[in-house]
Structures are given as C-alpha cells and as structure tokens.
C-alpha cells in the first residue's frame, strides 16, 4: 500500500511538467524542500524556529550573486549557496539552542530579522531591488538549464535527494535520539546524550537543506529578493508545515503545494491572501493540529488497529471440537 502510493506519487511528479506550468511546480518543489527542512527541526526535535527564512533567503542571495557576478556554473552556485546557509545555521544555531521553547522561537526570529536588515542595507544584495535576471547557465557546463523542462527534472532530483536525506536522518539512530530529546529532554541528558550537540547538528542540517531550497529557487525564478528573507516568509513555512502535518515526512510537501497553489490562485485578491493565511493558521491550530498527512496516518492506524482487533477476536473463538 505504502509502496503503491509512493510509485503513484513518483509517476505524477515525472509527468507533472506536461500537465501544469513547470515553473509553478518547480517553485512549489523548492518550498517543499524548505518545509521539509523546517519540519526536521520542529517535527523531530521539537524546536520551533521562527526565522528559517534567513537560511533560505541568504542562500538564494549567495547563489544568485555567484551566478550573476562570478559567472559560475549552476552546481557551483548551489553548493556555494547551500554552504552559506549551512554556515549561517551553525552560527545562529549555536546561539539559539542556548534557550528553549518560546525563547528559542523569539531568538531565531530576531536573528533572522537582523539578517534582513543586513540584506536591506548592503550593496551586494541589491537592497530593495534584490538580484534580478539571474542566469541559469549550464549544469556542469554541458546541460543547458534554459529550458524549463530540463530545469524541472534537475529540481525534481534535488527534491528527491532532500527527501532521502530527511528520511535517512529521522530513521537513523541519530533521528531516534532527536525524538528522545523532543519527548523528554532531561531524560535524554540523563542517558548520557550530549543534547546540545544533537540539537546543533539537527539545526545545521535543517539550515543546510533550507539553503538548498533557497539556492534552487534563485535558479528557478531568476531572482533573489527581500521577500525570501523576510520574517513573513518564516511564518509561511511554519504554515505550510502545520497544514501538511508536523513530524511527518510527506506532510510538509503536501502543505507546501497547498499553500503555493492557494497563493497562486488568490494572487489577485491582494491583501486578503494575508487574511486568509492568518485564518488558516487559526483554524489549523485550533482544530486540525495533525495536518493533512497526520489525519491520513491517524485514519490509517485506526483502521489497522480495528483489523487486528477483529483478527484477534476470531483467533480467540474456541476451536470446533472434533466429533
């Protein structure tokens, strides 16, 4: 059942650019990467970062600058951008994990706002204009990414790579320790785990993946701008993950597609989009905390539990005595 769903999803992903506008699907995939990265931290370590746009936006600036000003090939641009996001995650993460819970959220938010002002003031980011007309170039110098279709499959490959990294991370012993920290931090400490190191590692991994998403987005949309580094963007990624389902692998992907699609269709409504997003926030927090993927999993588990119960009842029935 799970394999079947996975195969179907992959098939849809492969033919998607023929059915929908490729740039739209690519943008949604970039946000899906971003949301998966964010979810790694909030869903599996229980750390709510309210400043994840910092890594996403900063990486996209670095990639855009490298591609445009230095004329590097796209893979180098992405590596540079992701590296910048990772380093930034290391610095901000080391500061933020010194506090927990609500303070952690406020600190990450404040640090990202600091970076926003930096991006607004320095010259190389282009201030209010951002970095526009970023060339896509040719992958490894041979594969021209100018065509949206070629670009799409590259983005899809990056996205699948990210999913694989997240899946691997949470199903490894490392991931188990993260969940232990989420459930009961003092107990994890008393078991001898260096909790701070695990948290920092998860933070850096999350920032790196967010950076990868941002770098790819700069390539896809030809632009790196202040919207990607603003704290409203941090709020959006929280919303995507929340709608999709915290702490599930597929949830953030679903959430990203839902929110990006909504923004796309409602773009003409102006500021009402903001109101609608806020309303979704309120509704999800009050009544739909498991999110799309979480609800599906819950229904699935309930069914399986019922089936097992049924089978158990049958097994308990006394065997018919032989005559």
């Amino acid at each position, binding site marked *: 059942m799970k394999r079947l769903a996975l195969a179907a999803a992959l098939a849809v992903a492969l033919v998607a650019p023929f059915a929908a506008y490729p740039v739209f699907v690519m943008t949604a995939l970039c946000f899906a990467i971003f949301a998966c990265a964010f979810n790694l931290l909030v869903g599996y370590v229980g750390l709510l970062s309210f400043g994840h746009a910092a890594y996403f936006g900063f990486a996209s600036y670095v990639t855009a600058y490298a591609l445009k000003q230095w004329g590097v090939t796209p893979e180098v641009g992405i590596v540079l951008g992701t590296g910048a996001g990772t380093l930034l995650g290391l610095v901000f993460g080391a500061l933020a994990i010194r506090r927990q819970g609500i303070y952690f959220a406020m600190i990450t938010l*404040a640090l990202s706002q600091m970076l926003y002002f930096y991006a607004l003031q320095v010259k190389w980011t282009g201030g209010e204009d951002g970095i526009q007309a970023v060339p896509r170039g040719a992958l490894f110098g041979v594969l021209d990414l100018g065509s949206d279709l070629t670009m799409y499959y590259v983005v899809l490959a990056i996205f699948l790579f990210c999913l694989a990294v997240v899946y691997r991370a949470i199903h490894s012993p490392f991931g188990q320790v993260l969940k232990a920290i989420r459930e009961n931090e003092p107990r994890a400490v008393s078991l001898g785990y260096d909790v701070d190191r695990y948290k920092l590692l998860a933070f850096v991994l999350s920032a790196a993946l967010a950076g990868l998403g941002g770098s790819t987005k700069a390539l896809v949309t030809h632009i790196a701008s202040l919207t990607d580094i603003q704290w409203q963007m941090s709020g959006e990624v929280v919303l995507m993950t929340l709608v999709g389902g915290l702490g599930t692998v597929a949830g953030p992907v679903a959430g990203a597609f839902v929110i990006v699609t909504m923004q796309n269709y409602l773009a003409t409504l102006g500021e009402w989009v903001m109101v609608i997003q806020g309303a979704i926030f309120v509704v999800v927090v009050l009544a739909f905390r498991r999110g799309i993927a979480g609800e599906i999993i819950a229904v699935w588990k309930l069914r399986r539990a019922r089936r097992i119960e049924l089978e158990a009842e049958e097994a308990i029935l006394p065997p018919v005595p032989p005559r």
Partner: protein
Amino acid sequence: MFDLIGIPPQALFGQLLLGLINGAFYAMLSLGLAVIFGLLNVINFTHGAQYMLGAFGAWALLSYAGLGYWWALIVTPFAVGAVGMVLERLFLRRLYNIDHLYGLLLTFGIATILEGVFRQRFGSSGLPYPIPDSLSGGHNLGFMFLPNYRAWVVVASLGVCLGTWFLIERTRLGSYLRAATENPKLVQAFGINVPRMILLTYGFGVGLAGLAGVMAAPIYQVSPLMGSNLIVVVFAVVVIGGMGSILGSILTGFGLGIVEGFTKVFYPEASNTVIFVIMAIVLLIKPAGLFGQTR
C-alpha cells in the same frame, strides 16, 4: 563642552531623546508581554497588532467621532483590552493544556489576520495623527530643543510602567497574580477564580499595548505595518532582559532605546541591528537574560 568627537550636541541629544522614546515603547510592550507570559505561558505574537489597533483606535475616534487625544488615551486601551479578552475567551483558552508553542502560532495567525485587514482597508502608507494642542510646542533647554509631546511620552510611559510595577509587586491583587504565576492550581484551591484572572491579565497586557499605540500615534505615523515592525525588536528586548522581573523589563526597554539612539549618532548603519547584536552577546554571556532566572 558637549562637542564630543565632532558631534554637535543638538544631534546627540536629539537622537538620545528619540532613543528614549523608542525605549519607552519597548518598555511598555515588553512589560505587557512579560505579564501575559508569566500567567498564560503564551508569547503574545498579537501584541504588535494590538499596539497598531491602539493607534488606529485613536485615529478612528478623531476622524469618525471627533474625540481628541485625551479621550483616545482613556477609551482606546479599554477597547483594545476588551478585544483581547474576547480573543482569550474564544481561542487562547483552548490551548492552555497543549504545547505552548501552539499559543505562539495562534496569536501569530491572529496578528496576520488583523494586519491583513488593515492593509486591505488603509494601504501600507501611514495616516497622520496630530499632536494635541495642549502638548504642542516645546522648550529650548539651551543644549537642545525639547518638544512637549515627546517629554510627555517619556514621563507618561515611565509613570505607566512604574504604576504597573506597583500594582503587581505591592498590592493584594498583584500578590494573587504573582502567586498564580508560581502555582495556579494551589491558588485556585484557595478559592480564587484563576481563569477569570487569566482573562483580566491578558486584557491588561493587551490594554497596555493599546495605550502604547495611542501614545505612538502622533510620533510615528498610524500605519498597519507599525506593529509587526516593532514586535520583532520587542522580542529581542524580552530575550535580553529575561521575563523574570518587572523592573528588569522596564530598565531593559529604556536602556536599549538609549543604546539605539547612541548608535544612530555614532554608527548609523548599525542602528537597525544593534539590539539584535546585543541579544547575541547576552545569549553568549548570560543565556537566561540580564534579569532572568532559569526555571
């Protein structure tokens, strides 16, 4: 005598005054956040939007009802506080038994709705609000020109802050509040209606934000963006001060405003970021905040 390193005294003191005024708003807002957090364990992300509501309330009273600044100063905080109490009753109350981060997310959602509605209605540019006649003009102090309204804001906000301190630390009502912050179950067992107290506390904290909004209206323009720009800085102020002590919040608020003012004089490029940098340094040296205790 005051001509330090080529900076004329007028500029220096002008920026210091501006810093002091910013500090007054930081202090009032972080005070409200701290009071709410103490009892509800919720960081009120709507605080910025409620500050904006205060400013718009003053503007609306003047434009639609013809009621001036002094009326606004009395009416608006109560109105904003009442709106806050409705929110607590309808929404926030449902979240006390689950992870406190959901409270943050809920209040963020409400803030987004409020800001979106006001942006839709009034656009992103600001609306002017006049300084009341009784406070227009100013005094020449010799080394600088002191506008009356700005002096009033500093004095009034200091009064409000110290009044809040007195209410919480020195009255019977405040002692209930402090006890409920420590152990709500025990206080309830003594026959005090804790849910109502939570409701009133939230209303009070939000009302403070509304009051700050009214006082800010004549200084900054009344704009839908005024709250969200400020709230992030206030969060940093709260992290720096720690939310453990009332006087600590007040001191940190004013102090950081002054530091920001100084930065504007000596190194203007960093004036937007200086508070965040200070936050990073404080986190390195004393993670619990200057006046905070780790609980």
